[in-house]
């Protein structure tokens, strides 16, 4: 005769699993303080678009894209600064910057490197502390405007 004890234990375990799934689903659906599942992970020195927009004009916006793209369209008030013409463009940036003012640098998209290069030089060569790169860059900004 086969003992029913393992079967009962299995059923109990399955019941517990079902109960935990139901409770977790209810929590995920109803709990207003649930953790965000799609939380954007920011790399070091990055700022999310929503946070950058909240800072707004108090920040100094830097457009690190090539000049032709800057001329075609940019975030309002952004100054051009890229390594193609660093020496020609840096003076205007320094005139607009003051200690404590945040700097937000963007380039074309999440994949481009220019904003990171410009941000690094502003930190290392100018001693600016609050320098961020915009996550998603110009593409993210455009997508938000639509």
């Amino acid at each position, binding site marked *: 005769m086969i003992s029913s004890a393992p079967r009962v234990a299995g059923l109990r375990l399955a019941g517990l699993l079902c109960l935990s799934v139901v409770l977790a689903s209810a929590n995920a659906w109803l709990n207003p303080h649930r953790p965000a599942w799609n939380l954007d992970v920011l790399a070091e020195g990055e700022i999310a678009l929503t946070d950058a927009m909240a800072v707004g004009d108090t920040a100094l916006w830097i457009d690190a894209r090539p000049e032709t793209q800057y001329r075609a369209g940019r975030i309002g008030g952004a100054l051009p600064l890229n390594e193609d*013409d*660093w020496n020609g463009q840096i*003076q205007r940036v*320094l*005139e607009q910057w003051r200690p*404590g003012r945040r700097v937000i640098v963007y380039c074309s998209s999440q994949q481009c490197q220019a904003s990171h290069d410009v941000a690094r030089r502003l930190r290392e060569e100018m*001693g600016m502390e609050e320098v961020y790169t915009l996550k998603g860059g110009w593409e993210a900004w455009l997508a938000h405007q639509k």
Partner: protein
Amino acid sequence: MAKFKIGGRQGLQTKTIQVKTDDSDTPTVLTMKTLIPKLLDLQPAFVAWKRGVAPDARTVIARIGADEAVHITKIETDNPAVQVQLEETEPGKTYRLTLFPDSTDESLTARITLSTDFPREKPRTFYLLAHVK
């Protein structure tokens, strides 16, 4: 033909180019690495004093990265609260800048502008920031 615009780039630069031919579906990747020397290397790149500390002089060494002699023809500060002195320690090659703030009681920033005579057709200007923070 592929062109690499040096512009204001400096230090180690790495560029890759994908070359596609009708011989193969797999593109060939060419990598170019080049070290672009700084025309003017400032060490340290900026100076800073903490608020309330003694307003001691700070020294910045400026080294010319070009093969030929480059002269710093003019040095200016946009904030008279930070004074700067220039001394040529090796003609056309090395300079010593001495900076000191009148006081460190308040936060401030001074932009030091260094004008050079190189290249002759469009002389370059460099900037050095001095902070009290």
